[in-house]
Structure formats: structure tokens, C-alpha cells
């Protein structure tokens, strides 16, 4: 049953590429203030799930409901929906011809019609929040990957979205840059931001998520508290994935060995 505080809900959503069901009748919901981490093997459809949420990918069947409204009925409504969903991409996708500040104020200015001073004021606050106060006039190309991703987060937040979607936000980063981005995300989570995070950072998922979803071959295999998924997974596939992934991760980062 749909609940009052559901922000995002997938109902039997199917997405096909060629003949393959990348999403196979997926039911999925996120409520306000919740942090959901989606983990699973590469190519399992995790990213597609996010890209369907804001209709960057059209779905083949099923329904996606956002803030009580069905996504993608008309173009105009679709633009409205996207304004309220922030998205952060694996490859940052900052606009290289614009400065950091211009990247952040662009959408608030032209989409929401905010005045320059309002938009710039908020942008500066956001830059402070992601620890890049003095970077407003720099171009993205001069920033490290971690800095670019933090700007990308600020850019998404500038639209004051109701939900933040993160698509493997640290996968393209040098290992020593991962921490600074995760710290910003942790901070957002602590402030009650509704977040869906596709990630391979198990430690982040374990410590920040309210709920972890294990996704494989277009299905949600298992979903529950981090405690349950990481210490006591019910499904064989989850166990196999986690034992493999956690042992790999253990070599580089300290992580309490909870996998079976």
C-alpha cells in the first residue's frame, strides 16, 4: 500500500534493452528522510533503476510515482519532476565551459527563474557546505575528481530537490579522493536528506544507509537494514556477492568482517 511519506515508488517497473529485462517488474519505494543504498554486481540494473526514476531512460511497463504523482505523463510535468530530483553521476558531468559557480546557478536561474543574487547566494553556501568555498571562479577542468564530484553534488542540491539520486558517485575517483565525497554524502544523510545511492562502497552503505537493497539481474534479491544484509543475508546470491566483495574490499580498507 502507498504510504503517506513515500517520496518515490516503483510499481512493477520493467525496462528492456534489446530482449533483456534490465529491470524485471521491480517494486521499490523510498520514504522521506530515508537513505537507501543499492548494491549488486555490475550490469545488474542498479544504474538503470536510478535513470528510470527521473525518466532519463523510458520504462517499458509499470509505474513510477514521485511525490504522489506519476512520472512522465507529459513533458512539462517531467521537467517539474526532474527539478525535484537531484542526480549525481559517476563521471560528475560538470559543464566544462562554465565556472564552478556558473555550473551551480545555471539551472536555478533558467529553470526556476531565480534572481542572480538569490542563486549565487545559495551557491556560495553550498560550496561552503561541500568544503570548496574558494573554488567558485575555477573551471571544472582544473579540479580533482573528488572536487568535481563535490561541485556536482552542490549543483544538484542548488535545485533544492526532495530526493538525491547518486549513481556510483565514487567509482570514477582515485582511491584517496573517495573519502572526501563520502564525507559530504554522510553529512547530507545526517541532515535528513532523502537519498538513493548506488554504490560499491560497502562500508558507507553499512554505516550510513537506513536500508540496503541487494540488486541482481534486474531483481531486488533482498532488502533490509544494513545490519541484516551484511551480517545475516538470507539469499545465497547476496551471500556470494558480499563474501566476494567484502574480501576484495578488506585488502584496501578496514572493514569488520561480517560476511559469511
Amino acid at each position, binding site marked *: 500500500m502507498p504510504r503517506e511519506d513515500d517520496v518515490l515508488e516503483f510499481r512493477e517497473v520493467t525496462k528492456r534493452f534489446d530482449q533483456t529485462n534490465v529491470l524485471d517488474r521491480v517494486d521499490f519505494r523510498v520514504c522521506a528522510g530515508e537513505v537507501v543504498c543499492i548494491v549488486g554486481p555490475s550490469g545488474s540494473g542498479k544504474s538503470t533503476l536510478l*535513470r528510470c526514476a*527521473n525518466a*532519463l531512460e523510458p520504462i517499458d511497463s509499470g509505474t513510477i510515482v514521485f511525490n504522489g504523482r506519476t512520472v512522465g505523463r507529459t*513533458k512539462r510535468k517531467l*521537467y*517539474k519532476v*526532474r*527539478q*525535484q*530530483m*537531484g*542526480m549525481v*553521476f559517476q*563521471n560528475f*558531468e*560538470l*559543464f*566544462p*565551459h562554465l565556472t564552478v559557480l556558473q555550473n551551480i546557478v*545555471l*539551472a536555478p536561474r*533558467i*529553470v526556476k527563474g531565480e534572481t542572480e543574487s538569490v542563486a549565487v547566494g545559495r551557491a556560495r553556501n553550498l560550496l561552503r557546505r561541500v568544503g570548496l568555498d574558494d573554488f567558485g571562479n575555477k573551471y571544472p577542468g582544473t579540479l580533482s575528481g573528488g572536487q568535481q564530484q563535490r561541485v*556536482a553534488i552542490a*549543483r*544538484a542540491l542548488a*535545485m533544492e530537490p526532495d530526493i538525491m539520486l547518486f549513481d556510483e558517485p565514487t567509482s570514477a575517483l582515485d582511491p584517496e579522493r573517495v573519502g572526501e565525497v563520502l564525507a559530504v554524502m554522510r553529512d547530507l544523510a545526517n541532515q535528513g536528506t532523502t537519498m538513493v545511492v548506488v554504490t560499491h562502497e560497502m562500508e558507507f552503505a553499512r554505516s550510513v544507509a537506513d536500508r540496503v537493497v541487494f540488486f541482481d539481474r534486474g531483481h531486488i534479491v533482498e532488502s533490509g537494514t544494513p545490519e541484516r544484509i551484511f551480517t545475516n543475508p538470507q539469499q545465497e546470491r547476496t551471500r556470494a556477492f558480499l563474501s566476494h566483495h567484502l574480501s576484495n574490499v578488506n585488502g584496501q580498507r578496514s572493514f569488520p568482517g561480517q560476511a559469511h
Partner: protein
Amino acid sequence: MNFDWSALWESLPVLLAGVQTTIVLAFLAMLLGIPGGLLLCAGRRSRFRVLTLPACIVIDGLRATPVLLQLFWLFYVLPLAFDVQLSPYATALLALALNVSVFNAEIFRAGINSIQRGQSNAALALGMSGTQVMRTVVLPQALRRSIPALANIWVSLFKNTALVSTIAVADLAYVALQLRTETYKTVEILTAMALIYWLMGYPQAKLADSLQNRYQVNE
């Protein structure tokens, strides 16, 4: 053989007038060819077949035929077939501008296609409309990437202007070839003509090279 280079000095004002026509003609053709190219490019990329079809006909028609033929066609066929009589200068400008528009259109199209999908996805994800994405994110980057190729088009356009001498537009080629027939000083005139074209063309080619380096895309 005796060469009479002094005769060139007497002809210099005439030659320089030709140079002026050449430069102005090339400049105006490019000035029209940039918006022309954008229009054709927009037409070709349009969702509507009523726009795609004419754009494709113009682009594929003009890309695959010699400029000289296009020039002659406008000059001789247009008046006969459609009863439209343009001055030689206007005909020359129209032919060059059209031809350059077509090549510019293809350059802009390649530029737009070279902007990775992730960029427009990021812009769409912020709630922008397709038009806003094109105007603020894709086109500024695509145009910047087009600059080196546009510079090369300019260099070849500049040399192509010599074709307009065939319909009696008094550009550098025309006045020089006229002088040759009048004075029979073939060696002197043609050498001078070569030198003047080279002196103008070489810096342009070098500039195009440096633009190439400056706007080179590293991904």
C-alpha cells in the same frame, strides 16, 4: 628572357582593388555561412520531416557537386528557369555563402554529436527543457569545438573566391587574369598573383593550425 617587373607597380592599384573584393567577398560569405550552417544543421537534426528533407537535399546536393558548377548554375540557370536575375556579385556571394553553409552545417553537426550524452543527461536531470539544454550546455561546447574546422573552411573559402572571376566579379583572380591578357606579361602577373594569394593565405593557414592546437579536445 626579359621580365618587366616594373609594369607590376603600375598595376598595383588595380590588383589591390581586386584583393579588397576577394577579402570582402570571403568575409561576407562566412558571415552568412555561419547562421546558414546553424540553420541547415538545425533543419537536419529536426524531428519534423518537412524540415529534415529540404535540409538534407541542400546539404547532400551541394556537398557532392563542384562549387564552380553551383556558381554557374545560379548565374545561368536561375535567370532562365526562374526569371531571377542577380548581379554577378550577388550571385557570387550567394553561391559561396550557400556552399560554406553546407560545410559549416556538417561541422556543427559533428560538434554537437561530439558532446557526450552524459552532458545533456546532466542538464536534463536538473529539469532543463531540450531547448535549454541545447542553448546553454551543448551548443556552447559544440561551437567551441567547431572553431578549428571552421578555420579550415575559411582557408579554403578564401581560395575558392577565385572562382568568381569566371562570372566577371572583379576579385584578385579576375583583375590579375585581365591584366595578363592586356599586357601579355604572363610570368610577371601570374607570379605576382601567386605571391599575393600566398601572402594572404599562409598566415590564415598558420592561424588555423594554432586554433587547432588551442581548441584541441582531450577526453
